[in-house]
């Protein structure tokens, strides 16, 4: 069987659904997710890194995981596997199909049924980041459906508000965010968080997504007290840390910081033009939110307009928590 004009996306989604023999419900940020699949172990591995964002609920989402092991292999459409350097998208029957040649995944996103279906040849063939931060594609899509966005930013918070940490990959967002762990602030995320834009009645809000964070060896040398929380090694050799929380409350966003490394300057925050902050966060977030760039832009622009913006110059990450606390204390909503 090949995927051609006679093969419908709805048929593929239906095949996956019918092959599912077990299910579980898990809270993923503000999303209640009904997970279905053929293996309880797979569902457990998907659910384990997710954290709930207490108190806020978006519309529930159903996620179906189908593997060639669990479905008659005749139904695995060969043409759904693009070349390794390709990402292919198709819109049919109200369903968006996204096939990624680099990781071998096929997502079928059906807003009418509030269902995301993941086809993968074998569960262990999933790329390592899908094991440490699973369901990212589903989260990107569903956040867009909900008028929000998955933002490329770390986030730390006190009891009342959050600060988003943005910047290029490798600039030290994770190190800065994790320097706050066990330092009086809560880490909502080291690389991603879900952001709801402000409304007339509510400020912009950040939601945690994952309980796992990543640090390279150099950063662990700067933050040696976090070594006890290393549980393994992830993508590109980075150490995986279990932040240890099952549930993190959502927080209104008080400020956004563009993190830059400046080894010869004191760790400090200085006001930054909002347009410059938007320039620091929008391109990489939109690149990761492809297919939903325009919606993501609207969330980012309205969020940036509603918060204070800073340039956070970091020379020693140990000093960052005090600076971030001062921002939270200085910026009431």
């Amino acid at each position, binding site marked *: 069987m090949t995927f051609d004009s006679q093969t419908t996306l709805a048929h593929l989604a239906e095949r996956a659904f019918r092959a599912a023999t077990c299910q579980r419900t898990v809270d993923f940020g503000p999303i209640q997710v009904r997970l279905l699949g053929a293996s309880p172990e797979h569902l457990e591995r998907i659910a384990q890194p997710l954290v709930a964002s207490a108190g806020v609920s978006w519309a529930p989402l159903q996620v179906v995981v189908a593997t060639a092991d669990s479905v008659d292999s005749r139904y695995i459409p060969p043409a759904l596997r693009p070349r390794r350097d390709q990402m292919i998208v198709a819109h049919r029957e109200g369903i968006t199909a996204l096939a990624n040649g680099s990781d071998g995944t096929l997502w079928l996103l059906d807003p009418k049924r509030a269902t995301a279906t993941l086809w993968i040849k074998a569960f262990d063939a999933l790329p390592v980041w899908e094991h440490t931060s699973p369901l990212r594609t589903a989260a990107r899509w569903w956040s867009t459906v909900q008028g929000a966005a998955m933002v490329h930013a770390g986030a730390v918070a006190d009891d009342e508000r959050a600060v988003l940490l943005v910047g290029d990959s490798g600039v030290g967002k994770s190190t800065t965010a994790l320097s706050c762990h066990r330092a009086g602030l809560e880490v909502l995320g080291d690389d991603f968080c879900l952001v709801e834009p402000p409304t007339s009645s509510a400020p912009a809000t950040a939601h945690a997504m994952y309980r796992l964070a990543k640090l390279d060896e150099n950063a662990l040398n700067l933050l040696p007290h976090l070594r006890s929380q290393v549980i393994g090694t992830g993508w590109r050799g980075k150490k995986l840390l279990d932040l240890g929380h099952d549930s993190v409350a959502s927080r209104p966003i008080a400020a956004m910081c563009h993190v830059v490394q400046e080894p010869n300057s004191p760790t400090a925050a200085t006001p930054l033009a909002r347009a410059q902050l938007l320039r620091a966060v929008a*391109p990489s977030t939109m690149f990761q939110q492809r297919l939903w760039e325009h919606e993501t832009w609207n969330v980012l622009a309205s969020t940036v307009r509603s918060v204070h913006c800073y340039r956070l110059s970091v020379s020693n990450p140990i000093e960052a928590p005090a600076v971030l606390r001062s921002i939270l204390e200085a910026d009431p909503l």
Partner: protein
Amino acid sequence: MSDVCTNVSPNEAAITVSYWLNSTNVVHDTIDGEVLAIRSDTGCYYSMVGPSATAWCALTGGSDPEAAAHAVAEHHLADITVVSAELAVFADALVDESLLVPGAARALTAAIELPPETAGQAWTTPTFEKYTDMQDLLLFDPIHEVDTSGWPVVTRHRDT
């Protein structure tokens, strides 16, 4: 990482064409007087400040070209002849970047909204800064869209 668009000297030709945002592939916003525009199909993004931000705002909404030039000249207390000529050159550069597309003018009565932060600033030749770091990533990892003719027949490349 960034390129600065350097416009040629103003020619004698005044702006005579109306332009619209290429809304299929471009998102933009003006915050505190600075314009940020991103092409979602290529990943290139652009920054414009001061008179350049004014010029962008005047050009993106299908304004009557003469009315746009007058509004900008009044906003910056500048010579209308110079402004009109430089707007024409700037618009050509934005069209070359596929940020704007030429089109019919909207009604003359529609207001031209310009950023208040740039009012009264000395007029300078409008330019933009172009950033291409995301473009490199997008070209490395392109998305191909297919239609009802089937998969894997690729009908449109978003990386062009």
